[in-house]
């Protein structure tokens, strides 16, 4: 197997999974989907941690700090606000009892 073929295979399969899974999300949940998948795209925080974790000093450290801060806003804020939204979706049964 060639070196490039592996990531391509993984990407193609993950894209299929993505399309199948996302098309099943009902319109009702499209706003949380948008903020939730945005939080997942914060996976680039991995790169930020690497960048900030190498004590290079000077400018690189400043950039690393900013990268971590930005990425953390995206991840923490994204997951929390999605959770807050989804917490508001009431189960029909519970409401019917009122």
């Amino acid at each position: 197997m060639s070196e490039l073929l592996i990531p391509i295979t993984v990407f193609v399969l993950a894209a299929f999974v993505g399309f199948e899974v996302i098309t099943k999300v009902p319109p009702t949940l499209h706003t949380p989907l948008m903020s939730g998948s945005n939080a997942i795209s914060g996976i680039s925080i991995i790169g930020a941690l690497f960048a900030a974790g190498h004590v290079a000093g000077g400018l690189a450290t400043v950039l690393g700090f900013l990268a971590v801060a930005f990425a953390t806003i995206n991840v923490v804020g994204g997951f929390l606000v999605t959770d807050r939204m989804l917490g508001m979706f009431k189960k029909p049964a519970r409401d019917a009892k009122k």
Partner: protein
Amino acid sequence: MTVTLAGFLYLIAAVLFIVGLKRLSSPATARQGNQIAAVGMLIAIVVTLADREVVGYGTIAAGMIVGGGVGLFLAQRVEMTAMPQLVAAFNGFGGGASALVALAELIRFGEAAETRTLVSIGLSILIGAVTLSGSMVAFAKLQGLVSGKPLVMPGQTMIDILLTTVSVAAVVVLAMNGSTAVAWGLMAVALTLGVTRTMPIGGADMPVVISFLNSLSGVAASAAGFVIESNALIISGALVGASGLILTNIMVKAMNRTFANVIFSAFGGGEGDFDSGAGGYATRGSADDIAITLAYAQRVIIVPGYGLAVAQAQHTIRELARQLEERGVAVKYAIHPVAGRMPGHMNVLLAEADVPYDQLFELEEINPEFASADVALVVGANDVVNPLARDPSSPIAGMPILDVDRAQTVVVVKRSLSPGFAGIDNPLFYNDNTVMLFADAKEGLAEVVSALKDV
């Protein structure tokens, strides 16, 4: 921690993202799904911190505390009506982080970096910076900090072509010589491109822009994954890319436009050179009249729109619905796919006001029911109920609409006869069976609620 164990844990993180997104397929499991995805992220972060290549934790701790604090604050304080802005801002921060990471890597490795690493660094800076500045413009427009109207500069097309050419050239040069100066230049050009390309897009089209930028940042994460050979990045990137594309596509389709049209046509802002043929007199109703009409109806369908969100009238409409239900009126909500300012926006607002989600109906489900409804109550919606969409010569021809005009009586609550986002008149307002209540949605509905108590 061996490489294998770390790799395995990253894979688990990716699987948790997939499982989390799968749970989003029903409101009953969605919250748990989001939490599962968050656990996946936590695992990925912990694994990265435990990696032996990471040596200094000071900067990391500082960054995480600051970022976490800001994220927490924003997530807890935001109004549900401001969700589009918030997503735009978060998306921008994500893009900024990618660009900064790429820049920091470049400084660390310098010209020693391999070509394919440099290509990825260039692309990350380009996509990341465009995402950052584009999202910030989107934020400003949605928040009302700058005008929502499309701002087309003279020579817009030339500027677009120029900035794009320069950016691509900078990526190529960077890949060849790895110069830090070129990277900073690329950053500056890309930031400018994000601004100049987003300003000419109308405020209501911002969700499309955000969704597209989000998709793009997913693709960028995948690209980074190719370089550092991280399956976690490739998989999550592909998931986000797919999600963004699907949402973009749904919005574009529901507006009956193309993606290119959204991005390049400076749509919205109400020039109105199409003659809708609408005219005549609009019938005006008082809150008392409307309360009586509603009280004696058997079936009422509520159609919320963007104006309801702006006026934050979701709790008031919920109160009105409850009073009607107590009187034995059957109340349903009709949710158009692009009502409001982002897909699913109305659902979140009504969820916030405690409306159970089984009372919300999608376009295809509810449209056949208007003919047997006594009252269609349209609150702050306009384009999504404009019957002109059935006229093949109108600008919104073919856009799927809610058939409110088939109801026996149509009550419309908005402040004036002025058009909605698409900028064209709405003949619905002049129909014989339409009654207008000219008021802010929240105040108008509050009046109806109190009038209802006296019926």
